[in-house]
């Protein structure tokens, strides 16, 4: 698309911009700033509410809002730099904004990083002429356990409500009342609940919406924002970790326009306090007969690990979580495979390289004509930001379909396929579909597979890269090495441990290691690690250590153990990455992964040798039957479980039913239903979901009691309370 260019003179500078560009952007193109509060291009159409962007336009007597007025050829614009009238207009706006503002900057968490403060210094009046009592409101109001609202500081720019309406589309944040009594509130005063609520705390240009976790925790001049990548889901949103005195105090988005556009989910934003969970391990624990686990020194722990490894030579089986860095897996794999000839691993999930030919940045979803979302797991539960891209696509006019055979798919120019599980063979299925549709050669077309784990691909890459041998099948497990919290929390893994002679658990949390491990080695979290992750686009990204972990880094003791088995391994992520990179990432240097990483190809991807050892057979539902999908909710897992203020976000026990299936069984919203299969049954309230396909029922894993596959569903008998 080549838009017609128009010439605009702004503060005596000539600039050419596409016709229809608003004056705020036009000024930016000319290297000039028009100050704004309500204007935020990511929120859709400009609003023109705050009146901060007033400019003088030649031939128009009144000042004009720069955000809503668009450039016309020959337009002559003066900003506050050159126009007395515009400067007075902006001064007036700031005076009005400050009339009821409490000016409590010294105790406001936004102070020092506040757009209102900054613009007041630059454009505002030095004094107030307001001599009456200011508007007061009850404050702070917890609009949810994670967000506090201070209505006195609010300048009613409506960024938050526009986000709620036009980005996350949750429609929960609204403005109530009218005129000077207008307030931001939640619909029906219910807690603001949803995957993306925390973004309003970053959109807010004043200290009105603040993350409750951060209240009175730090001042801008005593913090450092460390750029890293979120490690809680396969999207890999770019984030900044705000660090004060060695502690993470807050997570902020760090706009990667191709991945997250500056939005992050509430899990990524608020779950970081799991680093300081009550059961966080800092000392190794050793099982002592009749005493249970006892804290031991690191020397003792490494000696013990060496002993257990030697005893199980060739028979060590490793279970990964999918949240390890590439470097951790490579290090552990090198030790076990090269040093101990143990090649058996249970990878967190199947990941196929088949999609490499259909790679696209996530942002291309927004520009698609047709987006086909396949699978029954809600996208938001698996890769939340992808859900925002799909919503943006729909607002852009794209059709969102759930069937790749829809004739619209063949007719559309830009088609994006998204596989959201369950099943899907690590992307193989959707890759085949993409091949059938010939998407590889078509511009703007591609396919995504939403993995279940944050770094499933990177873990698989690293495990495959560390050794060429495959080893032979083993008949018994000498030692089970359980890497990471997700694996440690998995009942299947615990069952496997019962078959093993001994078990080493690497975990951050005591609660996950107690009762079954022979040796527990404290683990680190993604905010404490330096290394690389591969996200669902296949994009290699760099994690940075934002704070020092309370225990030695995994690479440290792995390298020490490796030395004892004559394996040469450096304890430094850069050195380890160099080895992996030679084999997998085209010899890319560690320093070149980049803080805003580009989407690179996969030049030398090795064949995936390891496979998921516990495949779940997929049952096809026959006519009239219902297949139950038990999905892992976004707000679940070891980190979320340890953050009290996120508990309200966890899914209610309920069964989602399609409108069709509900009607057929005379089930209404809220009715208790019994879900049964093979003699076991659960009873839950039903929620009819019109978007669910007939033949599918859905329940959060934690409420499924192990049920999945073909089930019988019926209205429960009335039980008296």
């Amino acid at each position, binding site marked *: 698309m080549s838009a017609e260019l128009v010439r605009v003179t702004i503060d005596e500078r000539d600039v050419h911009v596409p016709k229809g560009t608003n004056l705020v952007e036009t000024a930016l193109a000319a290297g000039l700033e028009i100050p704004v509060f309500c204007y935020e291009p990511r929120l859709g159409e400009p609003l023109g509410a705050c009146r901060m962007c007033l400019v003088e336009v030649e031939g128009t007597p009144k000042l004009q809002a720069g955000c809503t007025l668009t450039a016309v050829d020959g337009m002559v614009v003066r900003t506050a730099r050159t126009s007395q009238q515009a400067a007075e207009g902006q001064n007036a706006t700031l005076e009005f904004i400050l009339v009821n503002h409490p000016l409590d900057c010294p105790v406001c968490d936004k102070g020092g990083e506040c757009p209102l403060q900054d613009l007041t210094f630059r454009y505002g009046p030095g004094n107030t002429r307001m001599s009456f009592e200011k508007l007061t409101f009850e404050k702070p109001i917890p609009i949810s356990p994670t967000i506090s609202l201070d209505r006195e500081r609010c*300048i009613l720019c409506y960024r938050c409500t526009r986000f709620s309406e036009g980005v996350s589309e949750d429609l929960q944040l609204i403005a109530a009342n009218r005129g000077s009594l207008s307030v931001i509130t939640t619909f029906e005063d219910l807690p603001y609940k949803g995957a993306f609520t925390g973004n309003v705390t970053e959109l807010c240009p004043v200290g009105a919406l603040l993350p409750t976790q951060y209240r009175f925790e730090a001042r801008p001049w005593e913090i450092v924002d460390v750029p890293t990548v979120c490690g809680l889901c396969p999207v890999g949103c770019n984030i900044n970790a705000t660090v004060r005195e060695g502690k993470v105090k807050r997570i902020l988005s760090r706009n990667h326009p191709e991945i997250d556009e500056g939005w992050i989910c509430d899990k990524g934003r608020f779950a970081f306090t799991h680093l300081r969970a009550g059961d966080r391990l800092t000392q190794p624990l050793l099982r002592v007969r009749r005493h249970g686990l006892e804290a031991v020194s690191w020397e003792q722990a490494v000696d013990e690990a060496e002993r257990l490894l030697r005893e199980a030579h060739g028979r060590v089986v490793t279970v990964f979580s999918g949240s390890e860095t590439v470097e951790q897996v490579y290090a552990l794999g090198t030790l076990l495979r090269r040093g101990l000839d143990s090649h058996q691993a249970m990878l967190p999930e199947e990941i196929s390289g088949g999609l490499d030919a259909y790679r696209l940045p996530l942002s291309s979803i927004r520009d698609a004509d047709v987006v086909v979302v396949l699978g029954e797991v809600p996208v938001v539960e698996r890769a939340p930001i992808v859900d925002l891209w799909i919503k943006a696509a729909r607002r852009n006019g794209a059709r969102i379909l759930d069937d790749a055979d829809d004739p619209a798919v063949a007719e559309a120019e830009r088609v994006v396929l998204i596989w959201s599980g369950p099943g899907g063979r690590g992307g193989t299925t959707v890759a085949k579909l993409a091949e059938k549709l010939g998407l590889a050669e078509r511009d703007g077309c591609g396919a995504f597979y939403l993995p279940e784990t944050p770094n499933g691909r990177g873990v698989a890459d690293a495990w495959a890269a560390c050794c060429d041998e495959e080893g032979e099948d083993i008949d018994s497990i000498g030692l089970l090495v359980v890497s990471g919290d997700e694996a440690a929390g998995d009942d299947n893994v615990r069952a496997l441990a019962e078959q093993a002679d001994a078990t080493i658990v690497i975990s951050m949390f005591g609660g996950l290691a107690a009762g079954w491990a022979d040796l527990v080695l404290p683990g680190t979290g993604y905010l404490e690690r330096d290394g690389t992750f591969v996200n669902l686009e296949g994009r290699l990204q760099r994690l940075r250590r934002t704070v020092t972990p309370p225990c030695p880094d995994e690479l440290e003791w792995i390298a020490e153990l490796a030395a004892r088995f004559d394996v040469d391994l450096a304890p430094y992520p850069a050195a380890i990455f160099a080895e992996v990179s030679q084999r997998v990432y085209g010899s890319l240097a560690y320093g070149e992964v980049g803080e805003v990483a580009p989407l690179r190809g996969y030049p030398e991807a090795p064949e995936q040798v390891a496979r998921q050892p516990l495949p779940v057979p997929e049952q096809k539902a026959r006519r009239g039957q219902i297949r139950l999908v038990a999905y892992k909710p976004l707000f679940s897992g070891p980190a979320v479980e340890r953050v009290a203020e996120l508990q309200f976000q966890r899914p209610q026990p309920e069964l989602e039913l399609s409108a069709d299936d509900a009607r057929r069984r005379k089930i209404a919203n809220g009715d208790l239903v019994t879900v049964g299969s093979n003699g076991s049954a659960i009873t839950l309230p039903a929620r009819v979901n019109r978007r669910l396909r007939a033949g599918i029922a859905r329940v959060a894993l934690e409420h499924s009691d192990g049920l999945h596959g073909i089930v019988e569903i019926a209205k429960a008998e009335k039980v008296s309370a």
Partner: protein
Amino acid sequence: MSETTVRVAEGPALVLAGYDGEPLTSLAAYRAVGGYDELEKARAQDPQAVIQELIESNLRGRGGAFFPTGRKASFIPTPDKIAKPIYITVNADESEPGTFKDREIMLKVPHRLIEGCLVAAHAIQSSHVYIYIRGEYSREYEVLQAAVDEAREAGLLGGVEIVIHRGAGAYICGEETALLESLEGKRGQPRSKPPFPAISGVYAAPTLINNVESITTIPAVLAVGPAEFAQIGAPPDSTGTRLFCLSGNVERPGVYEAPHGITVRHLVDDIGGGLPGGHTLKAVMMGGSSFPVMTPDDLDTALDADALGAKGYFIGSGVVTVIDERTCMVQFALRVAQFYMHESCGKCTPCRVGTRWLVQLLRAVEDGAAQESDFDLMLDVCDRIIGKCLCVLGDSAAMPVASCVTKFRDEFRAHLEHGGCPFGADSQLAGLFAPVDQHAHTAAAEEAPV
């Protein structure tokens, strides 16, 4: 409630043609005075020709903005140029203080409004008409709905659907874009313009929005012919007649149809019978509460947009509210400011904040707690509102307040010298506004956290 006096005061009867005290609510009664003849004539013409006639007549909008009705209609794209429905929206949200003409049109000549809608629908080739009627107008709604039903049954709509939508009581929904938002079921807040409704109005489709009186005048334009219509009143710009809303402390308040160009004094003294009980005129709320107040020395100004404009006044919605010497102008300004503070939608900063600040300042003056410098501060606050808001509501609050401060500065100053209102309880704005305790907006304003 006593019936409002509604009559043709002088000049040709256009909007009220055929009305002689007996409402023309039935189709038969309206037919009997030539009703729907103009619709038939219009439908026999090319749509563009009808627009051309409106342009020639120089009919201007009666809602307050005085925009040429024909030109506005000509901005609407023709159906071959756009793949969207074209809408007509009639603004019957009559809420401007002092304005009570549209309700009388709907009560007395509802079919003429419908005929106007249908002529306009033909002119811009629309088949969807919304009439957005003020929520408090229940009798008017019933009368108008009955008339629409009767017209539909008589087959007069000709494929045009007329839907009457009742508002929910917000003044701002009389602003055209806020009205559209409200019509769409959203919060009634104005949109920023451009795009103008003619391009992107209701449901983002081309929309012609006109005031009730403007639409109702359309059949009259066709009846007398555009050239003739353009000679009535005060040509070239203030053509035709107006339904003047005369109220306040005047002997015979009412809705009077008269040509543009009669003087304010003529309307007040001759048509309205002057002030009762030997009271003297102190000021006129001219055009509506949104505009500068008129002082007695300007009473000989013609009710013609240009003549008024030359002296800094506005014809607005044809309001002439007479204020006599018993009225405290600080109280008057305060009441007006309270109204706008209450009705400000809260979307843009200057209006939301400025209206409340003005109320605080005026309250301080009224209580004798202000200082001389506050008068200039008030004028400056007004200046910082005017022309800087998203819509004109802010200006509407600031203009009358600024005019009161400027023109009645001595009276304002007397409040300071007297340590309070010199009128005390003697001025209750009697005959101007309902008492404070009967006004939802002032009651709420008093309760507001200050």
